[in-house]
């Protein structure tokens, strides 16, 4: 349940790699030595660790096409824990090393194995593995922020804060918490709070006007093939994010999700640890079961005591009967010319009011585009600066018919080759849709402002919102060979 060492590495596609922060936990190492006995392998010095990690992650020697230590087909990376082969005196395997990479950063920690070393225990028996993953994920969010692109200055200042942050969250190798986002932790003065205990995950107490903000975001993914032999796929998942400014040490808030009368049940529900209790019926629906009509379909009640910072209250998946936009894409090749024909239909249940809606048509493994002669029934067509991508901006609304088309020819005769992609060659091509529809969800799920209950002395202001946006929304060329994206459609 402890870590022997922690490293943070920055690199640029395997080049210029350096250790930006490291911490060895000597007392845990002391335990590791006693636990492992004769099979103990000491943690090597930083340079060695760096080299071994890069090799194991396939990032070393990027100029060489084959390096035995790195590329051997026997070393099959399919576990979250790596094994580093330490050479020289005290050689052996350093295991389990957990890593998380995002952009230029690699976060790694070596977990303590609190079990007899032989035979090697499964990861599932070691609590330190799941703790390590949780800790590294928290550390990553702290260093890079969630989702957005890492900015270098921010990263440098966050790295500089690490020694004091680690003292708070993992002083001696046993993780207590993940680093708190935002300002460095300065615990506020405790207040006499009667006999209620303040949660350890709450750094203080809110004072002032009570505001509860509940945002419901649904994301839709799709793979459309326009082909009899391949079934089109789409799925929807939703997240409910809350920011609650409510007085009290352990205030009670309940958020309720409701579905329209014949909506399909929410599945695979995951909740934040601050949710105090759950009804078993909420958890039963699962996306891998055949959904039957008798399943529980709400209302979904989530009683919780909120932390101070914004948090993801819950997430779910849903099976909706139709995709919001159905597309068909046809490409035919004539000489050095492509004939393009594309139709997009907006489903009638979807609100025809977008924040944005764009279709991107990339062309890989070809020369740059020369003459682009396309007509669109609505919106505006642009050629990207690199001349290998068409961007069709559909704007805020589909026309009344809820259908838009594009027809035309493209010739490729540019001086330099465009981007390459091993997956998309010749007629294996796709368009990708980017859209966002405010104030709607596909599943019909919503948070009613009046259903948010706050047990507090003052009446809080409650704000709710919902939106739908797309992610990995692909429409494949029906005349080409599209890759299989899920086994379910084949089996």
């Amino acid at each position, binding site marked *: *349940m402890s870590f022997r060492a922690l490293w943070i590495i920055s690199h640029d596609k395997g080049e210029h790699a350096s250790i930006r922060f*490291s*911490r060895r936990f*000597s*007392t845990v*190492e002391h*335990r590791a030595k006693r636990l492992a006995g004769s099979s103990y392998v000491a943690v090597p010095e*930083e340079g060695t660790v760096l080299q071994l990690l890069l090799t194991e992650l396939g990032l070393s020697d990027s100029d060489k*096409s*084959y390096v035995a230590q*790195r*590329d*051997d*087909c*026997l070393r099959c*990376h399919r*576990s*979250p824990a790596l094994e580093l082969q330490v050479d020289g*005196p005290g050689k052996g395997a350093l295991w389990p090393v*957990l890593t998380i990479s995002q952009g230029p950063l690699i976060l790694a920690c070596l977990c303590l194995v*609190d079990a007899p070393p032989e*035979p090697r*225990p*499964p990861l*599932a*028996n070691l609590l330190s593995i*799941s*703790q390590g993953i*949780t800790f*590294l*994920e928290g550390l990553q969010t702290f260093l890079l922020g969630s989702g957005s692109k890492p900015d270098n200055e921010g990263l440098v200042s966050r790295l500089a804060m690490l020694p004091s942050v680690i*003292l708070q969250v993992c*002083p001696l*190798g*046993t993780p*207590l*918490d993940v680093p708190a986002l935002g300002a460095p932790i300065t615990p*506020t003065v*405790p207040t006499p709070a*009667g006999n*209620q*205990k*303040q949660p*350890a995950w709450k750094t203080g107490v809110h004072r002032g006007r009570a505001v509860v903000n509940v945002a419901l975001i649904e994301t839709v993914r799709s793979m459309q093939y326009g082909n009899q032999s391949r079934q089109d796929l789409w799925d929807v*998942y939703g997240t409910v994010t809350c920011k609650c400014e409510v007085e009290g040490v*352990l205030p009670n808030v309940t958020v309720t999700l409701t579905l329209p009368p014949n909506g399909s049940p929410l599945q695979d*529900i*995951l*909740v*934040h*640890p601050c949710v105090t*209790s759950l*009804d078993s019926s909420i958890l039963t629906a*699962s996306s891998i079961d055949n959904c039957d009509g008798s399943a529980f379909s709400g209302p979904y009640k989530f009683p919780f005591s909120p932390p101070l910072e914004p948090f993801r209250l819950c997430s779910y998946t849903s099976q909706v009967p139709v995709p919001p936009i159905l597309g068909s894409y046809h490409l035919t090749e004539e000489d050095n010319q492509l004939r393009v024909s594309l139709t997009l239909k907006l489903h009638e249940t979807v609100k025809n009011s977008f924040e944005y809606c764009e279709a991107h048509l990339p062309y890989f493994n070809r020369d740059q585009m020369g003459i682009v002669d396309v007509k669109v029934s609505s919106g505006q067509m642009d050629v990207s600066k690199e001349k290998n991508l068409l961007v069709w901006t559909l704007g805020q609304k589909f026309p009344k018919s809820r259908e838009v088309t594009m027809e035309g020819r493209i010739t490729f005769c540019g001086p330099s080759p465009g981007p390459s992609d*091993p997956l998309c060659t010749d007629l294996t091509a796709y368009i990708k849709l980017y859209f966002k529809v405010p104030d709607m969800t596909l599943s019909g799920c919503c948070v009613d402002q009046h259903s948010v209950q706050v047990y507090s002395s003052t009446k809080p202001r409650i704000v709710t919102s919902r939106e739908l946006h797309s992610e990995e929304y692909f429409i494949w060329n029906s005349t080409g060979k599209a890759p*299989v994206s*899920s*086994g379910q459609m*084949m*089996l």
Partner: protein
Amino acid sequence: MAAAWAERVSTFKSKPSRFLSATTAETFLAELLRELRDDRASYNVKVLLLSPICEHPALLCPSDCVGEETALELMSVFAQCPPKYAHFRCHLLVALTSVLICTSCMSSLSRASQDFLDLLLQLSQDISDLHSDGILHSVRVTACECLQELEACFPGLLTQHVELFSGLRQQDTFRFHQAYAGLHSLVLRNAVYQLTQETGAGAEQLKAVLGGNTSVAWEADQDSGLMNIKDSSILSSVILGSMSTVPTLHTGPDCKELRSVLSSLLEESYILTPLSQAALLYRLTEVVAMVPGVAPAIFRAQLLRLLGTSKVCLLHTTLLLKCAFTDSLFSAEDEAFILKRLVVLSQHPLLTTPTKLFYMDCILHFPENRPINCGGSEESLPVLLTPQLASTLVPTVFNDSATMLARLNLLCLVYLEEGEEEGRGLDYLYEHIISLLHTVENGGGREIVVTFFRAVFLFLSYFYHMECFSNGLIEKLCKLYRHHTRLAPQLINLADQTQDRLAESNWAVDLLKELQRVITNVPLAQLTLKNLPWHLKMLARVAEEGKAPQHSTLSFLYSVITPVSSSLCVSGDWPLGNCVLRVCRRLLVHPSLDSLVIPLADILQHLACHYSDTDIQDHARLYYTLLTTLSQEKLAGLLAQGATEGGRWVKKRSLSCLMGDSEGLTSLLTIHQTEKAIFSLVEVDSDPQQETQEYRESLLNQNETNICTDEVNTTLEAYRCQLSSPDVPSEITLNYQLVHTETYDSCFDQLFSIRLHFTLTDEHYEELRDISVPCLFRERPSPVVKLRLKPRQPFPTTLHASAIFTNQDGLSWHTILPDIHVAFQQAFTPLPAPLAWRQECKLNLFERLWDEFSSESQDCATTLFCCKLKESDLISLVEKHFLPFLISDWSHKEEFKVIFFLPPQSHVLLKIRPEVDAVHFDIATDNWQLLPYLSSYLQTLISSKEDAHSCHNNCEAY
């Protein structure tokens, strides 16, 4: 100042060994402690200074007493630090904990560690900070964490304080309850574990521990008893899966006190952070597992909350609960639900890749209520995982490589179990591999290529026996190779690994044969200087297969090198020639060589005559000669390097192999550095008895015929004349043996071509030449090394020695030998008088020289050395040490006259007389600088005689 320290500390942290080679741990630690005590240093710098102590306490405090002193120092720094520097105080506590645990101060409960323990207990209870600034609380939290780490390293240390921590936890309403809860649960867990190890312990003892009354629980003295725990099993988890046994404490059903403690901890677990909550739940799971008197149902209230969580560490605790309690806590429906949940989570869009990989790993080690197989570390599928359920986890080309391989592995297991009749899923997996292959064909990057070959290997390792797939793969791989010859190393690696791992399968040989067919059918026009080396590399691998016929390879080689149209012989360079020779070399040891002799000889002869590179010509000629003159057995013996394994030659590194693979060649051409000295030079004890005996005999022989006729005055001149002749030794020869040091490493058992290099440490000797030793084997007698030193001044000295050598693996090494010390007496040489001289002439010379040294002023000196010595001791001393240098008659015991000649030109003359009160050593020399060395030499000689006392040493120099 701060920047300098930041630089130093980071240098230390990145490479402690190199940092400490420039200074010592002692010095560095002293500097750190001095700076920590310095009032002028800022607290930010001081925090930085503590990090080397926190992270490498054992390195900086190599012994317990250093650890103890360091701890006392740090405690005094803590005592003097104002409370407002809470941050620094926290770091200090962590540093103290590290030092005391990592040296054995804590395990021996030294004074410092007892003081520290008292300090921590006091800090952990100190609630005076309650109304002060928030930052001050951190000291209390850190103190609790330090206590927890101490308890984790020395289980049972705090057992007597169980009740204290329980009370503190319950009283606290602020955020410290988490620290107390962690401490309380760990101490409780360790106490219960220890009770399980006590014979006869039961409900009463448990109650006593919970009540803080440990004297009832343990009769033995607590402190000394617990510190001596050598067994590490208490550190290890008690929940290890279905096959392990959990130590149990039999209490009967009455465990009210324990149950109430557990419920109270569980009730409040919700207000802990997920990471601490997971740790707490795990400790409590261990406690309940060890006490059958408490029903696992105590956890039931938490289960739904934990099963619905999005945090991986919390869901993991439910899996561990299931592992510990199986059907006593989880029904069959629960089990099905958890498994479904795991499958869902393994592909959930909102989770990160490591989390999903972890969940997939959990599926393969699912803690079933009724496991069929014995569990352990083997991957196996839970019975409830149907192909239908697993189908959501089929791999696709959109997966990242780790996810794809993990899914492929899981699905392979599913379909392997399912059997062949329902082949659709398996067909899908095969198609998936083929679509990966297409991606590689379309120019996928390195990562895709590597992933593809791993996927192929994984697939084959499950389904190599299904010919429709394995043959199909061979065909597809050959097609891939035809268009992408650069994939030769990956294909060779795949062939190697399938051959090694799937011994019962013939797949690798089939693949290689087919590749051979593809290569040898390539039209000549399509061969380029770019793809030919890959083809040759591949053919060389095929030639390792005894079962693969090689005629087509030979005709391919022949057609490549012979025709006029081929530019290979004309423009081929050394590497390409080597590629051809490598194939030939493997063919020379092929089992079917008999049938290959003529075409192979033709090829070698052609290369020898026409290849544009001379070196290649020479080697081809050598191979040709070997082939045409040696029998097959001899040829095989000559060329085989190491045994064959699985019908394939095992590669061995050797320069004589010539065509080293690029990777092997680098390590072969690099000189590696040994960590420790591998061998040393040990001075040979040339048997002095033997030498003196011989010398005495020669003297006796001389005595019989000894008549000196020379004129007195001419003696000195003749000697001077002799000194300038080249016969006079200008060197001293020292004999050493080269022997292995104590450190045993089998890879240095046989060493070859050892080249010893010596470096002088002063100006008194001429530079030494390197010395070569052919070989050094551990089991054979040590070789003798003669060191020839040419003095400028015959002073004692020290030589640094190093060596370069080759070991049996063919790698070159550089090593440092222990220093060689050359003592003063090792420079002594007998008087270089002309051979014809009799003893009287030498005596005569002795007197002449004596007079000269006594009168001349330049560099000459006389002195007297006195000591108490019995006469018998004196005689044995002279016999043992001075006999080769004795000028006077051995029988003449009243006065011994001795001359040491020290190359190049120095003399030391001794007249040794036993007087009434002491033995007098009258000394005369022509190099007064030798006197201090002589004096200490004589003193060591005398002191080696036990009853001797040096009483007087009178030295006068002119």
